């Protein structure tokens, strides 16, 4: 579900925020955290825990409007209620040529103290034009 939202959301984000192409993944992550979350959810997130080669980071949200009135019942204790957000980020980044993997590390609904998403860049997929080798 999140993936389908993400692939459409990215165009709206690009149209309304007028940002130019990001130079590297670090800038992309900052864009998502500062501009993206602000535009669509009204909260600012922070980026931390960069790994050595700059392909994996954590986005931390202090406040998550999606869960303002939500409580997980006993039958759903293992549910990732906010997993839609990881789909949205994955879908959006795929439309701009980045294959990523997004997972929840900390989730307040399951008892942690904050919301932490881990975004890992798997690879960059530049546009390939079909080339027919006639020889």
């Amino acid at each position, binding site marked *: 579900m999140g993936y389908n939202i993400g*692939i*459409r959301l*990215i*165009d709206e984000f*690009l*149209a*309304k925020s007028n940002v130019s192409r990001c130079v590297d993944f670090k800038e992309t992550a900052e864009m998502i955290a500062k501009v993206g979350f602000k535009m669509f959810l009204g909260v600012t997130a922070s980026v931390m825990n960069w790994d050595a080669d700059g392909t994996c980071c954590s986005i931390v949200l202090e406040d998550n409007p999606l869960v303002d009135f939500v409580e997980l019942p006993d039958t759903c204790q293992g549910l990732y209620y906010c997993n839609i957000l990881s789909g949205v980020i994955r879908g959006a980044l795929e439309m*701009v040529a980045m294959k990523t993997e997004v997972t929840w590390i900390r989730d307040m609904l399951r008892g942690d103290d904050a919301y932490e998403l881990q975004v890992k860049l798997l690879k960059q997929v530049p546009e390939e*034009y079909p080339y027919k080798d006639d020889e």
Partner: protein
Amino acid sequence: MAAIYSLYIINKSGGLIFYKGRMDTNDSLRVASLWHSMHAISQQLSPTTGCSGIELLEADTFDLHCFQSLTGTKFFVVCEPGTQHMEALLKVVYELYTDYVLKNPFYEMEMPIRCELFDINLTQAVQKDRVALLGR
């Protein structure tokens, strides 16, 4: 007042998803795929690094302005030579696309656009300050 002859929107793979103008459908499809290929080739041929393709084509009887979003969708407009503010118009069309096409739950990605609200708002946006020859 300057006139706009036609507006094309093409998807990532080069297929025409929206056309407003007075050309025959087959011809418009041909122009769209031609432009898609030319745009791609120009990106490869360009002497400057980081080029994103042709933005403006000036001919004797028309100008062609093209805008490519970071997601690969191309918006281009054929207008009278010397028409001003076409880039701004293309940005407006991009915003209308995100608002009325992408948010339409019945619209399938990369398919031809059949959204009434998009058409209405597009005509309004174009007619605001210029004479358009679209769809007549």
